[in-house]
């Protein structure tokens, strides 16, 4: 929620939610762990921060569930197990008489990750939440997962696999660039005919990079130029070395997921770094 739209009631609701959820655990933690006022304040702020992150992730998980359900329900390749059969209401590959799936999700996540050329669609300026992937990619991933499962799956089970495959989709906070048109894209000289194609590729990479950059929060954009230097990350974030490493790895994972796959990955990545104020050659 943007800062200028906060009201006292919003803050009270948020505090009420935090207390209702965590009051017992936080009280036990503070009584056991806090040694004085300074350490108590630090511990309490940390608990609240992690709780807020969890809340944001839950909201995004709900949106992901709705997206997956909608795609499954409107694609002929999938259907639901009819009533009266084992696994009634679960999702399966259309027309396959399979038993209900059970077990660990590791193999299914691997199958989801093995799906090539997953694309994240162009960013919508009216939405605050990043889309998980385009419809064709969601269909391909769901198909691969159900095939690997060789069984019917609950929506929640499928969503758990999607969350493991697309962790950035529930990663708060996400902030948009206000105006993509203001992002400069380098023009190429149109000399030989081949360079027209190169220029088109560069333009596509630039536009894609602008979209990816728009999915990063302001803090993440400040961090991108420093990813290769942990000391700089520490300085930017004002945190310890382990946290700096974790934030850097996390942002690299997120960028890898947002940039996606394809021949222009490197060009997009370098352009993202440039748009975030860095010198691509240093990364």
């Amino acid at each position, binding site marked *: 929620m943007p800062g200028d739209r906060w009201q006292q009631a919003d803050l009270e609701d948020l505090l009420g939610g935090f207390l209702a959820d965590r009051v017992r655990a936080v*009280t036990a933690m503070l009584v056991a762990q806090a*040694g004085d006022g300074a350490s108590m304040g630090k511990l309490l702020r940390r608990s609240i921060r992690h709780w807020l992150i969890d809340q944001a992730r839950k909201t995004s998980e709900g949106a992901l569930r709705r997206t997956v359900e909608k795609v499954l329900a409107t694609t002929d390749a999938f259907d639901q197990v009819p009533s009266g059969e084992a696994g009634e209401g679960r999702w399966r590959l259309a027309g396959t008489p399979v038993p209900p799936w059970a077990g660990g999700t590791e193999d299914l996540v691997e199958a989801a990750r093995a799906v090539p050329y997953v694309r994240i669609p162009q960013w919508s300026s009216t939405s605050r939440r990043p889309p998980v992937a385009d419809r064709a990619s969601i269909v391909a991933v769901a198909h691969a997962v159900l095939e690997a499962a060789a069984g019917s799956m609950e929506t929640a089970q499928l969503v758990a696999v999607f969350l493991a495959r697309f*962790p950035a989709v529930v990663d708060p906070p996400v902030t948009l660039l206000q105006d993509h048109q203001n992002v400069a894209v380098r023009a190429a000289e149109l000399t030989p005919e081949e360079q027209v194609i190169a220029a088109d590729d560069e333009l596509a990479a630039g536009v894609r990079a602008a979209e990816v950059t728009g999915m990063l929060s302001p803090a993440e954009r400040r961090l991108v130029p420093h990813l290769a230097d942990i000391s700089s990350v520490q300085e930017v974030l004002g945190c310890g070395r382990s946290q700096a490493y974790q934030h850097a790895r996390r942002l690299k994972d997120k960028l890898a997921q947002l940039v996606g796959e394809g021949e222009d990955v490197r060009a997009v990545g370098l352009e993202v770094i440039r748009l975030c104020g860095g010198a691509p050659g240093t990364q």
Partner: protein
Amino acid sequence: MSDPRIPQRFLDLAEQARAPRGLSDQALRDRFGVLADVEIQAGQVWQARWEDVSVLVLIVAVEGRDVLAAPVTIDPPADDAHSLVLEGPSTAFGIDTTVWAGLTGTVPIRVLERPVDLCGDEVVQWTRSASEGRSGDVPAGARRGHVISSELDPAALVRAELADDLEALRQAPGLPAAAPGEQSRGLASLLGRELDLASLCSALHLAQPEVMKILRGKVPLTAGQIETIAQLTGLTAERVAASVRPLPLGLVVRMEHPRWRPTWQERARTYRVSEARARLAGSYGTYSLAARQTGGGEPDWDERLRQFLRDEDTGPGGA
């Protein structure tokens, strides 16, 4: 009477926020006795704190001035594949508690503040095994933690914060301890060309032969002398103290025991210095007092400190 500005629903929620019975003063006394008598042992869960960094740690072993310990968290709820989650009823906290065996490492005894819980041998053994990369049977009343599948998992951030907190605790300043066969550099070599003998004699109100002994590192310094030399030379008190003569290991071990932390913290408040400075001054004061007394063998350092504190209460001096 409650503050009328606080909504009633918050007061109702606060009513639920009672401290776990297992952490009441009486329960802690029943479990551990008085802090002064507590012996640090494997299986104890301690609050470890230095400045604003505070972590719970499960002690796996005691190793000289350090303990081998795994961090323990109650909130936020998080774990990883190398951790053990203890169910609430099996802890003093009454809440599911994570033992991060994968982060097991040394923690200096000087940052231990107070014991808060006890874990069974099977939890200690599991933690030790997991920290060495071996897996054992999960103890009753516990479960293994979940795999962190991505760096974007919030548990990865909790783990990184813990690692930084542990590192901060390890950096807490300790007392300068004499190592076997180690020679101190001596204040004379530390000062080099900056040495001004006349100024030192004047500032310390000592004759030249006495100051020469100090410069050669032959005699311990009082807390006041350390402070005076530090002010005169611009060196830190820790460097002055260590350069003259490190403290005997036996004394250091006693002074860094948690039983004396309330004393150092009280003196830090009284003299408006850091806890580390208060402990350093008190330890050198104790050492100086012991050096003036006769008797063979290792002194009873706790008793010497009590005597030093009594003398300070009845005479001039300070931290």
